[in-house]
């Protein structure tokens, strides 16, 4: 069975380490915050200028001056820091964020990522995504493995305009967890009940399949 959005978030959360500064993109990446393992503390960076993002506010706490990069009202945890967007992207561009999680339309075996623009469709803009992928050394892409029509999104070469070149090293899809290295995807784990064959079939880029590909496990 393909992973649910929640399971994808859960699986990504296992990559968190105690003391990580993490930037979570919109969508599934945002859900990761709900699955931070016990005993691990991470500090969430929001690129508008907030380090130490807290929970959503209660109705009484709502403050128009306190939003996150998704423009949602949020709170700051004790010990947070708030700063300008120039400072925020100084820390992003300068490689100070330990882990970035973001969605994508396509990823290829060279670590290229396309996530912001589909020619012919309305272009909304890249926001901070290009800075994030250029600045982070440690990025996890979350995406479905293939489109609704069964077309692979893990490609030999991205077909859409890039967000960043050669910057992605880990991908979590609804079917598998993969690493990208030396021009190939390496299959590290598969979703429960998903066969290696299905993953091979739905991966258009070069895929290296080790002898043993463990199945992910999730608490019931």
């Amino acid at each position, binding site marked *: 069975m393909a992973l649910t959005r929640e399971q994808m978030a859960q699986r990504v959360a296992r990559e968190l380490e105690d003391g990580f500064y993490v930037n979570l993109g919109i969508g599934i990446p945002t859900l990761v915050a709900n699955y931070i393992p016990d005993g691990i503390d991470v500090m969430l960076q929001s690129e508008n200028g907030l380090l130490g993002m807290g929970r959503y506010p209660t109705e009484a706490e709502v403050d128009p001056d306190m939003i996150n990069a998704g423009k949602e009202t949020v709170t700051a945890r004790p010990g947070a820091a*708030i700063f300008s967007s120039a400072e925020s992207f100084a820390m992003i561009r300068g490689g100070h964020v330990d882990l970035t999680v973001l969605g994508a339309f396509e990823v290829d075996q060279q670590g290229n990522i396309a996530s912001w623009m589909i020619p012919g469709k309305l272009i909304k803009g890249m926001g901070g995504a290009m800075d994030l992928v250029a600045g982070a050394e440690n990025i996890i892409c979350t995406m479905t493995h293939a489109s609704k029509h069964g077309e692979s999104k893990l490609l030999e070469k991205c077909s859409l305009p890039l967000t960043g070149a050669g910057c992605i090293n880990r991908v979590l899809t609804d079917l598998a967890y993969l690493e990208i290295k030396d021009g190939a995807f390496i299959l590290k784990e598969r979703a429960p009940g998903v066969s290696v064959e299905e993953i091979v079939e739905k991966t258009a880029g070069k895929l290296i399949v080790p002898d043993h590909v463990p199945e992910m496990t999730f608490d019931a």
Partner: protein
Amino acid sequence: MAGFDKRVYSYEEAMDGIESGMTVIAGGFGLCGIPENLISEIKRRAVKDLTIYSNNCGVDGFGLGLLLEGRQISRIFASYVGENALFEQQMLNDEIEVVLTPQGTLAEKMRAGGAGIPAFYTATGYGTPIGEGKEVREFNGRHYILEESVVGDFAIVKGWKADRYGNVVYRDTAQNFNPMAATAGKITVVEVEEIVEPGELRPDQIHTPGIYVDRIIQGTFEKRIEKRTVREG
């Protein structure tokens, strides 16, 4: 000794001198920390053919969206413009030129403009459509593109508190692009919620030193919320 008293008492005075064809740098992120009354005054004046540098372009009927209604913007440098149906329409009709600019690059272009740095290298956008036509250079084995900075005819800024010398502090995430915008205007206008006496702001806690600021006005603000997300109390 009126030399450093930068207070003005009407929005008309605050935006005095703005003309069609000018470049305006605006603070704000989404609808947070936007100079909403200064924008309304630009709308009222009906100046046209503006070039805007702003992370976003407001929403229909609020913020910079107001200037779209008046078809006052001919070009905008922004990182994300997906909140606005009118914008979409003007873009598809080629009524407005959109220069999509990565958020960090946009912030740095303003900061560099204010700081007398005409251009800088960044890895952001290398190998993407954003890097096309821009100089590429390698430093320590990595590729970077050259980005030029910007100085506007006007910068419009929203602060929290200021003194009459133009020293400004911002509140929480309403800071966002405002401090950089404030440095990058030939004329910088700041509207704030409260004007305090010189000395009330701790000198080492001022976000925007008054040297960057030409006019200060105290206003009242709607502070519209774009996405109200709450949890159970």
